[in-house]
């Protein structure tokens, strides 16, 4: 038997027709009114069928729209995921690039003592050759000999001092570079570590006459990730150099460390540069936010700083600034970095 949604209505109409025939016999006056009633009922049934179809169509459209919505939601989520991955990749690349800059900075820094040592050694070699020639000729005077001794003394002192300086730079750099690349956890003296990091930045600071003063309790020992700290400081210094001191203005930067209590470290990095407007200040930590788009700004330096302070050091960072009032970054983080989960 064929399924009929409106079987009951159709049966009612058939019954009404039968009733109409009876009515024609017993009450002929009522027939036309009755037929109009049956017609109205029939039309109403047809309208009901149409409304059901309209309603079904709407339901189907809703279903399609929901599917489409779900599909687009998935698409948007996938796109967001790709974007996050791309951002992460760019941030990693930026970190590597800053490691490259560190290497270049230290190479430049070591160049000076090594250069001095080489020229001293060469001067000493010349003096030695001259004395040897005189000695071969048996013509060494007392004066020649004492002049040679003076030269040898001066140059060996310089060679030694500069080689020691180079060795010290290499040791410091090695530590910073290894920390940066390996992200190993260890105990370290904060003041010393800040100084070692600043050494690699000297080539950027010195030519323009900028200085960084450091005020740090000498015995403050941290247990955590020195590489992270070094990266943070390097990025803060580079950010200040890029933005704070335009037109050859000579800048002062200061790193001040204090302990609000024995478990926490507050590190304030400030510059006396041109500062920034509130609109930019509010956005400095946003990824890809830069006022120097197309002029070498990636918009990632301070975003990385923020990530590292919050993510790696489990601390917080705030920034205060106003036009011509300089800029201050205040980092607050535990002296002993909590274990990563």
């Amino acid at each position, binding site marked *: 038997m064929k399924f009929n949604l409106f079987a009951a209505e159709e049966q009612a109409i058939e019954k009404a027709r039968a009733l109409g025939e009876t009515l024609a016999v017993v009450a002929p006056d009522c027939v036309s009114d009755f037929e109009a009633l049956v017609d109205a009922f029939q039309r109403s049934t047809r309208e009901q*069928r149409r409304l059901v179809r309209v309603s079904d169509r709407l339901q189907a459209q809703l279903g399609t729209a929901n599917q489409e919505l779900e599909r687009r939601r998935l698409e948007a989520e996938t796109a967001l995921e790709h974007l996050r991955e791309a951002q992460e990749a760019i941030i990693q690349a930026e970190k590597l690039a800053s490691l490259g800059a560190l290497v270049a900075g230290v190479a430049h820094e070591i160049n000076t003592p090594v250069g001095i040592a080489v020229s001293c050694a060469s001067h000493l070699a010349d003096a030695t050759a001259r004395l040897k020639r005189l000695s071969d000729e048996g013509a060494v005077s007392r004066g020649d000999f004492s002049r040679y001794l003076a030269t040898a003394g001066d140059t060996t002192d310089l060679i030694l001092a500069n080689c020691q300086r180079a060795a010290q730079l290499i040791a410091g750099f090695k530590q910073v570079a290894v920390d940066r690349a390996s992200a190993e956890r260890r105990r370290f003296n904060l003041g010393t570590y800040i100084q070692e990091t600043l050494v690699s930045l000297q080539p950027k600071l010195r030519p323009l006459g900028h200085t960084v003063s450091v005020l740090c309790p000498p015995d403050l020992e941290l247990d955590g990730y020195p590489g992270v700290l070094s990266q943070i400081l390097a990025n803060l210094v580079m950010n200040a150099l890029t933005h704070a001191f335009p037109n050859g203005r000579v800048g002062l930067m200061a790193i001040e460390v204090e302990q609000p209590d024995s478990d926490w470290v507050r590190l304030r990095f400030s510059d006396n540069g041109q500062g920034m407007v509130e609109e930019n200040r509010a956005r400095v930590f946003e990824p890809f936010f830069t006022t120097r788009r197309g002029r070498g700004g990636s918009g990632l330096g301070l975003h990385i700083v923020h990530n590292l302070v919050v993510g790696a050091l489990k601390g917080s960072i705030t920034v205060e600034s106003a036009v011509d009032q300089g800029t201050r970054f205040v980092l607050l983080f535990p002296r002993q970095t909590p274990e990563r989960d």
Partner: protein
Amino acid sequence: MDSLNIPATGRTPGVTFDFAAGHLRLHGESYPDDVATFFGPIFTALRAYLAEPDDRPIRFDMELLYFNSSSAKVLMNIFQMLEAVAKLGRPVSVSWCYEENDESMRELGEDFSEDLRYVAFSLRDVPSGAIG
């Protein structure tokens, strides 16, 4: 009689009833929050227009892309009113617009025309995106 013009909104259709020209048109989408409030004044105007003795032809363009069940019942009521004047001899035509490829809308049009005997009913397909 003045024409009745109501601009379309997101939920209510555009109404363009040019009574002088005998041209009535509903277009856009129709799922008003309150059917009575929206369609009440439209029915009043339409009833007054159809009540005037006149034998000039009437053309009704149904160009709704999307309508809810209440609006469907509204359409059926309008069609019945038009059928009534057509039965008295006034030339009335109804054109049911649907977007090409929208089979179910075309079939609905056929369904809606099943009670129209005196009204000249036609289906008109238009390229999708062309009405609204």
